[in-house]
């Protein structure tokens, strides 16, 4: 499977099932898309993520939240990209949603009301990246001790040595 060039043009990708539905439903929520190594990534506006997830869960049958995580692109700004990996069990396909967040305003709506399974995943992202999820039922540290300072998976947090 040799690598093919990345496609970022919405026009070429608009036939994809999930993207087509989102564009016809609320085009404003989609900020961009990318097809890389046969994996579709859709960039979602921050305000719309919970509505988009609810829509995809009920209407498009991407019924399983595989994973929710984050990557820190420090020192680039906006630095955080929260990635939601969704799986459709019926259609046997995956899609990745992404929300881009800046460092000084790392807040996004929680999707725990849509998928209860997001509970632990969001707590983990909060703990290790310091991103706050609005509307999360119990946003506390999960991996690190409660009195820990800092968020270890941020890029400006050292791998070794004293903090």
């Amino acid at each position, binding site marked *: *499977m040799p690598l093919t060039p990345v496609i970022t043009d919405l026009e070429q990708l608009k036939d994809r099932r999930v993207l087509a539905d989102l564009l016809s439903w609320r085009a404003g929520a989609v900020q961009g898309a990318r097809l890389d190594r046969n994996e579709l990534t859709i960039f979602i506006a921050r305000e719309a993520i919970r509505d988009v997830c609810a829509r995809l869960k009920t209407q498009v049958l991407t019924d399983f939240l595989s994973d929710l*995580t984050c990557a820190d692109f420090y020192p680039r700004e906006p630095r955080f990209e929260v990635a939601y990996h969704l*799986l459709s*069990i019926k259609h046997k396909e995956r899609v990745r949603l992404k929300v881009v967040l800046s460092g000084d305003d790392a807040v996004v709506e929680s999707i725990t009301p849509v998928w209860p399974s997001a509970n632990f995943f969001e707590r983990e992202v909060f703990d290790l990246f310091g991103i706050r999820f609005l509307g999360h039922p119990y946003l506390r540290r*999960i991996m690190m001790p409660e009195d820990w300072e800092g968020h270890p998976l941020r890029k400006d947090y050292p791998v070794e040595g004293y903090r």
Partner: protein
Amino acid sequence: MGHLNPNPVLDPTEDKTMVLNMGPQHPSTHGVLRLLLEIDGETIVRMMPDIGFLHTGIEKTCEAKFYQQIVPLTDRIDYLCPMVNNLCYVMAAEKLLGLEVPPRAQWMRVMLAELQRISSHLVWLGTHAMDIGAMSVFLYCFREREDLLRIYEMVSGQRMMTSYFRIGGLALDPPLGFFEKVKKFLDVFPEKVDEYENLLTGNRIFIDRLKGVAQISAEDGLAIGLSGPSLRASGIDFDLRRDMPYCGYENFKFKVPVKKEGDVWARYLCRVAELRESREIAKQALEGMPSGPTKAEAPKVVLPDREKMKTQMEALIYHFKIVTEGFTVPEGEVYQAIESPRGEMGYYIVSDGTAKPMRVHMRSPSYANLQALPQMCEGRLIADVVAAIGSIDIVLGEIDR
């Protein structure tokens, strides 16, 4: 590790409830899981899992390592099936690189991954039965697991932390006499499963402890993130090996055991049936094992053979380069998911074009499965908690990472 003491966390609404601390040093929590139980007599009103006691920051460590140095770290995540973790990681890295793996390496990977599934399920079966009170099954299971560990030792030099799968293929070609040993094991294994089933499947005490306990419906299971045999026991007929094949699984014929009930008993039956199916797949892989190389033709990524390294200048240079400065990986991100013995295991890797990954995230099945535990146990008795923990087959190394 959110809760320093239980009292501020659970807030008993009525006087009659009390908070009971279970773990982290409780033998039937399968590691260092701590459960806070709010109980009314023997009935659980509320349950809260507390994790993080085994957090070692593997994801952070990965960001400081070369791609090939991460393979041994993945062993330590889920120590009951290290090769399945290796497989998931190397497949994600190969997808990032756009690397094609030769068929012999793929079939070896499938065969060993299925053997690992067997040995992982054997540990589950033994400990689960022991939690319920059937001590002898544990000894039976570990007897067969010992044979499997010898097989892994033969092929990789290690019993548990194997690191046998490498980016671009396998570490070494399997040694002489290896396939005979695997065949010998696979030939006798069905009788051994019969032995376990004789001890458990018809055992009235065992059935009474398991049937109807810790039920979860298909919709609830999907919403809470259950996957693997735990989800299939609730009636969702989905297996990544069959439905989204990877690593050549499309070449194998096997059944996916599905049950409707969604209780501990159904999960037990699913996993025991999987023992037999895994043996089928391993047998097919053994019989159809292709010949040929076990490493991809990619000198900049795959370490050269020892012999070549000593006789050829280029091989020596590549070896030196890979070991000292790693290999660069094209920019991009991938999410690779496979069916681990516990459910959907996924690796999310973001590459920034250098020799070290920018982000490695493991989607561990136990982590998501654990979330279902409160839903399964609330309203039931304390004794059922032990059965429920055993039935979702958690590994704490994988949860805390």
